[in-house]
């Protein structure tokens, strides 16, 4: 092929690439909400607060999470035994990994070595290599392993056991259960405080957050939030956490100060707020209203509901690229 033709082809290819990039940049910022009961994701135009499309995911997807580099949104397909990767910019499917048995809740360890998958229905925790999703260990976790958190050094993963009212710690080095401790009724969401000292556990059965000194396995405080405290999400400032209280009628989201371990604000969010995401500028909090087929947007300046976006059935996770830091 003559070199002039090769050069022309290269230039055309560059132009096409540039046009594609511009097209993506011109597209409205996208939020992705996961609809568990429909097996789909809803694509939301974040500027217009409107659902603009839907894509098929799989059977009974539960929870989504970004890959560590934010280049993919990973959907846990519990009834399909798959992970499905979506492009967070376009909502297009990127790839599927099969034979991930009954994934319900997912997590990557902070050091990027481990990928952990909870099977809530079948009482099991699976540890995978994060690099190639090869199964390393499989542990019994009775009963109903729900959410997970890691310590800052990636030595442990902590799992809430919803039906046995416990938190289980798994030593990632030995890949064995390290300890189990009792907590309040029906523990769900769990996070590690930014200083790596405390685990915060949302106690759904009694509506409080249990503060645990995980090194001594002692409960140091119980912070009442609201009925059916369910999940926790960082505001992004290394200090405050949102706590979704997943009651249907009187649903709300509390703001917890991890310095004082006290609730400092509360917003009314109807429909069973569950999973959350915060805008990078800290002005909006998005939450999936599990029992209302909606994503609720809270204006954090006025502290009121700003938008209520219809999505699919049983929305169980929301993500957008323009999110606040996870701290």
């Amino acid at each position, binding site marked *: 092929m003559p070199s002039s033709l090769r050069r022309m082809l290269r230039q055309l290819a560059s132009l096409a690439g540039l046009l594609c990039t511009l097209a993506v940049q011109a597209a409205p910022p996208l939020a992705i909400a996961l609809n568990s*009961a429909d*097996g789909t994701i809803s694509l939301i135009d974040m500027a217009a607060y409107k659902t603009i499309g839907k894509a*098929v995911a*799989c*059977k*009974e997807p539960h929870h989504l999470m970004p890959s560590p580099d934010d280049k993919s949104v990973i959907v846990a397909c519990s*009834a*399909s*035994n798959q992970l499905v990767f979506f492009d967070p910019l376009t909502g297009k499917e990127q790839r*599927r990994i*099969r*034979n991930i*048995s*009954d994934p319900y809740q997912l997590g990557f360890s902070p050091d990027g070595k481990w990928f952990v998958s909870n*099977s809530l*229905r*079948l*009482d*099991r925790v699976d540890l995978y290599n994060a690099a190639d999703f090869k199964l390393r260990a*499989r542990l*019994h976790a009775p009963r*109903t392993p*729900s959410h997970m958190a890691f310590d800052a050094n990636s030595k442990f993963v902590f799992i809430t056991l*919803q*039906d046995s*009212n416990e938190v289980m710690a798994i030593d990632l080095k030995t890949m064995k259960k390290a300890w189990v401790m009792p907590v309040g*009724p*029906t523990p*769900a969401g769990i996070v590690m405080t930014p200083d790596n000292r405390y685990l915060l556990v949302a106690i*759904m*059965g*009694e509506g409080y957050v249990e503060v645990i000194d995980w090194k001594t396995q002692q409960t140091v405080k119980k912070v009442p939030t609201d*009925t*059916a405290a369910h999940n926790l999400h960082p505001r992004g400032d290394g200090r405050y956490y949102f706590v979704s209280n*997943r*009651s*249907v*009628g*009187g649903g709300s989201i509390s703001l917890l100060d991890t310095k004082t371990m006290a609730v400092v604000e509360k917003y009314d969010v109807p*429909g*069973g707020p569950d999973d959350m995401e915060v805008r990078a500028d800290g002005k909006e909090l998005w939450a999936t209203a*599990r*029992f*209302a*087929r909606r994503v609720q947007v809270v204006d954090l300046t006025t502290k009121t509901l700003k938008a209520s976006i*219809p999505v699919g059935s*049983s929305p169980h996770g929301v993500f957008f690229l323009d999110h606040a830091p996870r701290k």
Partner: protein
Amino acid sequence: MNLLQQFLDGFVRVQGWLLDHVVQPPLLALGLGSYLEVAFDGVEFFLYGVLQLSVAYLLLRPLEALRPVEQWTDRKAVRVDVLYTFLDRLGIIPLAVFALLSPVFLGLEGWLRFHDIIPPQIEDLLPSLEAYPLVSFFIYLLILDFAEYWRHRLSHTLRWWWALHVIHHSQRQMSLWTDSRNHLLDDLIGGAWFAIIALCIGVPPGHFVGLMVAVRIVENLAHVNARISFGRWGEQMLVSPRYHRWHHAVDLPPGRAYRLGCNFAILFPIWDRLFGTQYLGEGMPATGVRSPELASPAHADRFWVQQKDGLLGFGKALRAALSPRRLP
């Protein structure tokens, strides 16, 4: 806002109200908060049941009034079927079956999965189906209907099972309500059958709730007391009231192929055609069974008498099956 969205919003409001005011408080009080999601699905199942019953009644009852096969002056025997229908469609019997079977099958599935035994799904064999959930829905429907054909046929073949299933057939006033008239033990065995199939095809039974609700309108239609057929071609595609009426006929069609019954299909008659049990009869035969006990007034309209009769027959058939046979 479009009509569908308005309907969904209304549905979700009612569902949310029921969950918030009726279901959530006792669950949280009893420390059963983790069942809230299941309860939410349960409330949805209940509301779909109400909706499905309303649709069935509004569509099918006029047909029974306009084109009845049989006119009944005394509808007392129908009333017990209405009770069965409410217990079934509103989720009371399914909830009991779920509570009894769930620990067993979850344990079994948990053990299989722990040992890395994952039954392949349709989409694993045909990955392109991932993009076409409606097609995959139809394939699962076919598989489940095929399994239901064999469950139904076996319930006519095995004597102990027939002793239970005969309660469904003892109704002489067959109507849109008759579909749910089943012995409770028959329901439990049916639930176990369904759970085994779900285990084999690798999809949790809960995944099919929506599918079952849709199928049941067709099942109500199949039992309707109305002169309706889909014609010769139509009856090869979908079970019609005439097609299913022959399944319930007091006098079975002649021939060895039909000695244990005919037209076992639930939705698609293709299974009867493939396995030699199809009978495309003319007319609308009388329904019921030739049994003096089961035809007695004491049995006809009493729920607990029917349950007792079924259990007695079941015990007798089981004893006969287990006892050593006498040499001639």
